[in-house]
């Protein structure tokens, strides 16, 4: 870590600790965190400008900086839409936006006035980015979008949506997909927000005859998949860091509990059966840390043949570690971790939600397989 990264880490760690969410203590099931104050805090620290280049009004941070922020967000169980706005939305603008698009939107992201969301998932698409049935039909200088998107992270409060739509080909073709920047208040956009398992909010979004001017196409017409795949890989690296932060805190909570909880007249942490399980949790956390670092290192790699298997491997490992750490933390705590009031269960839920975002373990192992694996043949 450089000196600048160390300073960033200190300030974000302090900020995240001050704003750490404790759902059991502060809110009833279903309530979201008070977002407005938190979001302006992010803006004041410069975190919303972090990954953008200085020419675009940003700070010029890379994936390591994003990792530092996401790890702190995960550790603090924070539900602010950083992933959807800065990492995903910002990633699309950074990696695929025209100069005009960058100049229009990045300053609004940086000052906290604009949130973004990536509207991609459909009923049938599951983990396949290329499975798109939403259509975009050219009409004069506009495109007209029709379709239904679901589980859109931060989708109910986003001012700007990045939407995948099919401009050519059939449903599962890799070509023919185009990305659109859609204003949230465009006529024909309707949404239904709902709470998610991890305490954040997601939305279903209906697009009915939504007119989008051609200059709001993001990247290439019909060639949007390559960009979407890269931005999702950037988001996967960030998610790995978020899960890592959650695992660290869950590990810490568990070990503290083992030291304080007394049964049979002694701390339960004196039992070797539990010590070994706690040791295995640590091994799992450290393997996840290694792969979160690997993901950060590979996230900006432009060549998908290098980047894809690396990111897939990282998510597969982080998912696997997250399952183990989450389940073991609940087991080692016992009944207390089953309550809404105590934090451990909420970390377990966070890890479970991250697991199924942008590909579960099976999906990513398959990607590793299809790339021919990671170990080159001799």
């Amino acid at each position: 870590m450089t000196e600048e990264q160390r300073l960033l880490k200190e300030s974000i760690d302090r900020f995240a600790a001050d704003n750490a969410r404790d759902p059991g203590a502060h809110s009833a099931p279903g309530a979201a965190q008070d977002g407005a104050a938190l979001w302006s805090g992010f803006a004041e620290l410069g975190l919303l400008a972090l990954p953008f280049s200085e020419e675009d009004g940003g700070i010029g941070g890379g994936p390591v900086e994003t990792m530092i922020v996401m790890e702190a967000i995960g550790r603090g169980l924070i539900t602010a839409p950083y992933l959807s706005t800065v990492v995903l939305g910002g990633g699309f603008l950074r990696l695929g936006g025209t100069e005009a698009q960058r100049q229009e939107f990045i300053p609004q992201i940086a000052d906290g006035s604009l949130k973004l969301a990536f509207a991609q998932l459909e009923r049938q698409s599951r983990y396949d980015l290329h499975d798109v049935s939403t259509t975009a039909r050219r009409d004069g200088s506009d495109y007209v979008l029709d379709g239904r998107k679901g589980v859109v992270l931060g989708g109910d409060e986003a001012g700007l949506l990045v939407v995948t739509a099919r401009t050519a080909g059939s449903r599962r073709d890799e070509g023919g997909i185009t990305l659109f920047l859609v204003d949230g208040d465009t006529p024909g956009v309707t949404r239904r927000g709902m709470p998610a398992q991890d305490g954040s909010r997601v939305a279903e979004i209906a697009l009915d005859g939504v007119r989008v001017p051609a200059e709001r196409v993001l990247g290439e017409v019909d060639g949007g998949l390559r960009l979407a795949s890269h931005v999702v890989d950037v988001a996967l690296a960030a998610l790995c860091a978020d899960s890592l932060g959650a695992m660290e805190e869950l590990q810490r909570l568990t070990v503290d509990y083992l030291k304080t909880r007394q049964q049979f007249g002694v701390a339960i942490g004196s039992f070797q059966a539990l010590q070994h399980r706690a040791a295995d949790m640590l091994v799992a956390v450290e393997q996840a840390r290694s792969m979160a670092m690997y993901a950060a290192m590979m996230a900006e790699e432009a060549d998908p043949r290098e980047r894809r298997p690396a990111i897939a491997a990282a998510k597969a490992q982080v998912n696997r570690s997250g399952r183990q750490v989450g389940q073991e933390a609940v087991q080692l705590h016992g009944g207390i971790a089953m309550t809404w009031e105590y934090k451990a269960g909420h970390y377990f839920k966070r890890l479970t939600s991250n697991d199924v975002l942008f590909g579960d373990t099976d999906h990513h192992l398959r990607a590793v397989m299809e790339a021919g694996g990671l170990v080159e043949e001799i």
Partner: protein
Amino acid sequence: MELRFTPEEIAFRDDLRRFFREKIPAGIRQKVAEGRHLGKDDIVTSQRILNEAGLATPNWPVAWGGKDWSAVQRYIYTEELQRAAVPLPLQFNVFMVGPVIAAFGSEEQKRRFLPATANLDIWWCQGFSEPGAGSDLASLKTRAEKKDGKYIVSGQKAWTTLGQHADWIFCLVRTDREAKKQKGISFLLIDMKSPGITVRPVITIDGAHEVNEVFFDEVEVPAENLVGEENKGWDYAKFLLANERTGIARIGLSKQRLARAKRLARETEAGGRTLWEDTDFRRRVAEIEVGLKALEITQMRVVANQRHRHADKPDPASSILKIRGSELQQATTELLLEVAGPYSLPAPDHEQPEGWNEPAVSPEWADAAAPLYFNYRKVSIYGGSNEIQRNIIAKAFLGL
């Protein structure tokens, strides 16, 4: 932390890669690649080639033939050795007794032993474990009593790997029976030709003669063969074990085995196609590869942190490397066993009837798969069993 290699490091890697391929005899590397046991000559030949090029003991002090390499260079060296299926320099010499003598031995001991140890003119074996002292090593009972300027050693050592080839043995012996168990132990160098030493082979489940029992019956050892101070042997042993653990993940070896399993799977027919086309098989490969990548980066993190640590203090992270490294080594031998399938059943070195000229039904490599799989169950037992490693993590990391 920088996880990518610099151009200089890549050039360094390529030089080593070329040297190992060109200079170490292919026949020896083939045996290593197939996981077959090596003869004494193979190991000696290979180590002398490395030593001549200054590549046998890079971990030693520069004054005694070591290299002033960065942590990353040391890592690359170990990786490439394993990847090229070069026999590792004899670990008892290079990673165990050599560094101990270099750090704690007298000048006379250094001159007498270090060059010969590097060149494998002396073959060392390790006398630590005993029948009653395995995981609880400090309870060892082999005793050394000082009499007329000599130590008289009596007792028994167990699991003495390749002791049948050894010229010398380095032993932990009890020199003070009154002191607390770690405090009364000394580190003694003993000539295997001394009267009173008996070596008894122990054949392991793979049918190989790899380990031995060594009996000491009033063996006379000159007092100058004591390393460092009397009753400080446990400290030297801890130093030695810390050295052992940094290389214990053996990621290069597992990668080499995995690469081999992939190649063999492409050549192996199964269900009317190749085994490689079986997605269940490939998924298992992918899972091991993900685990290996995670461990490789963990290893690089440990290597990078070592620069900031005292050399005599083991990094508790090495317990993680030991646990995951041994699990993945075992997983790769299991994978090779699965590739060999039913053809793994015939034992190696079976006799050929005279005049039998039929082409073999079983592939030639397949008879090494099962012995390798059996043999590698040892890696989660030795070097501090994986359960001992979990105890260390619970105590040193978690404070439980």
